[in-house]
């Protein structure tokens, strides 16, 4: 076996030694160099920094590939803007600049008493300007910063016209909206997916862009994990089981109630998303629209196809169906594989819910551990194989039967390559949830709309207070 670096807090202390309980992970936290105390010799600091691999020792000659350090230079039209972090105790700063490389205080021009940010204006576009900075205290200057340089440039202002309605940059596209353009058509054209229309709406703050308006279409995710300094997005994941024309109980929702709930989602602007989109969000790679929600169905009831699918199609809602493979084709209440294939063709993502729906955390009375373990392996591996055979697709997501899991089950889910695994604990999911213990909210047949709405909470802010 190849050597695997320690992850998730269970690092081995060395060959022959077990990794401790993850409390020992505290020992594995990286050691950072402390701030040097005032009065430390600069030479000692230089040595420490050199050991830390930072380079750029103070007082060292400023030539060559010196790091930019904290001084930065942003070019503009006939100007350069310089910024730097403040130095505790500094009374002022002096800036040195010149047009030739190899800048030194002896050769350069000096500007006394500058403050950040400093705009060095009246320059000539196209020429390289070089800069150094010193801090001043008690009339004495410090050693020199690293050298930075910049080339001021006129840079033409980009203009969108009917003749040239699109401008492309690495990170975004600027478009002039023309008659017939919609967020969906623009998302299809520039993002490859009309379902990403929300990206255009949310980024621009424009729900219905009219012809003549300019839009910015970001090409990379701009709200990863739904995280800002004041709030964290949490995504509700709703779970249904059976839908019935007449009955309702804990696990059975009437058709009328289901229609009402889907209409509620539609009318209030909720955006059901796929599991893959949710996975990107959890993996901190992607963003989700405001009011994103995930719709899931468990087990493989025939009513999902007969009563659920028409409503989902009406609103264009994606959903996921977690099937336990022993159930399929067994009796008139269960889905058949044909129905499942049709569900898949209509945007329902078929995923795994074990083989037999046994409680994976519980051994039977007469069961031995080894038999139990083998049964667990089968419960998790067999559905993957079946779905691959029947539907020619890989199952990536798992819903635990009864929502029950423990560390052994979670470890096995990871071993079998599931990306995410879901419980049945009522709640919504942030990006930093344990990916193998993601909560979902069961929608009972006894819920009214008010109760249904309570399961759609989107934000948490208390974690960051």
């Amino acid at each position, binding site marked *: 076996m190849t050597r695997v670096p320690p992850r998730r807090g269970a690092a081995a202390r060395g060959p022959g030694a*077990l990794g401790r309980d993850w409390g020992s992970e505290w020992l594995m936290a990286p050691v950072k160099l402390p701030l040097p105390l005032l009065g430390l010799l600069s030479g000692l*600091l230089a040595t420490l920094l050199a050991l830390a691999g*930072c380079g750029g020792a103070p007082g060292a000659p400023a030539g060559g590939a010196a790091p930019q*350090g904290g001084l930065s230079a942003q070019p503009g039209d006939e*100007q350069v803007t310089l910024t730097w972090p403040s130095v505790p105790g500094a009374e002022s700063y002096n800036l040195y600049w010149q047009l030739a490389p190899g800048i030194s205080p002896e050769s350069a021009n000096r500007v006394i008493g500058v403050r950040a940010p*400093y705009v060095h204006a009246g320059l000539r576009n196209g020429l390289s300007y070089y800069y150094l900075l010193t801090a001043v205290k008690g009339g004495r200057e410090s050693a020199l910063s*690293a050298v930075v340089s910049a080339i001021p440039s006129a*840079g033409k202002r980009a203009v969108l016209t009917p003749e040239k309605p699109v401008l492309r940059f690495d990170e975004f596209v600027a478009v002039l909206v023309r008659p017939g353009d919609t967020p969906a058509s623009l998302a299809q054209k520039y993002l490859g997916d009309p379902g990403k229309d929300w990206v255009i709406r949310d980024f621009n703050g424009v729900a219905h862009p009219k012809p003549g308006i300019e839009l910015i279409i970001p090409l990379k995710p701009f709200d*990863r994990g739904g995280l800002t300094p004041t709030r964290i997005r949490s995504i509700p994941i709703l779970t249904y089981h059976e839908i019935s024309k007449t009955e309702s109980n804990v696990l059975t929702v009437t058709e009328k109630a289901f229609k009402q709930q889907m209409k509620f989602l539609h009318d209030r602007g909720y955006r059901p998303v796929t599991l893959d989109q949710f996975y990107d969000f959890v993996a901190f790679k992607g963003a989700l629209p405001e009011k994103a929600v995930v719709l899931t169905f468990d087990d493989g009831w025939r009513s999902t196809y007969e009563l659920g699918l028409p409503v989902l199609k009406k609103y264009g809602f994606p959903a996921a169906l977690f099937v336990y493979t022993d159930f399929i084709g067994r009796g008139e209440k269960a889905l058949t594989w044909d129905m499942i294939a049709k569900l898949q063709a209509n945007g329902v993502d078929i995923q795994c819910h074990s083989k037999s729906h046994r409680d994976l955390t519980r051994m039977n009375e007469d069961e031995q551990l080894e038999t139990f373990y083998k049964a667990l392996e089968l419960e998790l591996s067999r559905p993957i194989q079946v779905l691959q055979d029947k539907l020619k697709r890989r199952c990536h997501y798992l819903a635990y039967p009864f929502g029950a899991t423990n560390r052994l089950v979670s470890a096995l889910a990871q071993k079998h390559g599931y990306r995410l695994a879901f419980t049945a604990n009522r709640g919504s999911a942030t990006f930093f949830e344990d990916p*193998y213990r993601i909560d979902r909210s069961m929608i009972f047949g006894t819920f009214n709309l008010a109760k249904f709405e309570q399961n759609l909470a989107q934000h948490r802010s208390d974690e960051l207070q």
Partner: protein
Amino acid sequence: MISRNRFCRGWVPAALLLAFVSGCAPSQGASRQHPARNKPAAAEPAPAAPPSTPAPKQSGGGSQAAPAATAPTIAPNSVPPGALERLRRQAIEREKRMELQDALMRWRFLLQLHPQDREAATRVAVLREQVKLLAETHYRRGVSLFRKKQREDALREFLLALSYDPDHGDALDYVRNRLKPPDWVYYTTVQGDTMKGVALKAYQDEQKDFLAAAYNNLARDAPLSPGTVLRLPILEPDLRRPSMNVAEVLEKAKGLLEQEQFDLAIAEADSVLVYDSSNAAARDILNAAYYRQAKALAAQNKPVEALAMFRNVEPGYQDARELVDTLQAGLKDQAEEHYKKGIQLFIDEKLDEAIAEWEETLRIDLDHPKAAQDLENARELRERLQQLR
């Protein structure tokens, strides 16, 4: 995974310049080539603080697509048609909300569209440093708290670090990996190790060698060369115990019900029903909790709220049906009044107000025969009108 360079870049400027102030470096006084070019600070004042309102337009201004000589007037709350002004406005708003990473992105986009924009150039330069510094500060706090085993607080700091710098790999590593308890333990084999020996060390039971072997896709008698890293799953102490002690949870739910902590009682009963959907005791507790809340709301003269709460109670539970009928009869007139008002407002072409009245109708009487359809039609009409404007 962990980048020393990331850490070092953040610390070099402060550490370097701090050492400078200690006076160890030689004085920089020297002759100048062009004394005339030494400009006193006053001649080139740097802006002291970011502007809190949009800066005066640098050049051009207004909508880039507008061919007219004069820039269009933008009403305070309208959406600027031009991307530049919209980006600027949004960037400033986000800076106010401390959403600095988002603000930085918008300033950068603006700068790419308009490289001469001085405000954008300045804000990009300032925010770049600011987000780096803030991210690093929160990250270091997080590490310190992590070492003190204050995990909740550490998580908050790492999240704050990521909110300022989503590319902070170290903070993300803590959030995703280090702050979570593991599902397995790593073991690195040594000379002489066998699967049974490993099982004895890990589980105090060499009969569990099958676990070590099977989890790592190895045969039970597979030879283990030194330095092999095995992953050993963690076993719960009692695998025959049900994953939920239903009786205990129900007791707890009943206790909460008696204390009138209805929401908590509902949550506990809920969890039993998820585990066992046929559990009658849990359903009784739910019914009782909703019923009592509904009655309390009715006693407080909140008929609409009481009715909504009663809808959570199973029909046939005590006198819930009779109470619902009474409430509905009383509210019907109220609902009808709002409905008729909506009709009049619609006729008067006050579409928003008509919609509000029909929403209120349905809030009072969810089953009103006409309000739902009229409301849907009115909303569709409003959307079409908005698209035409």
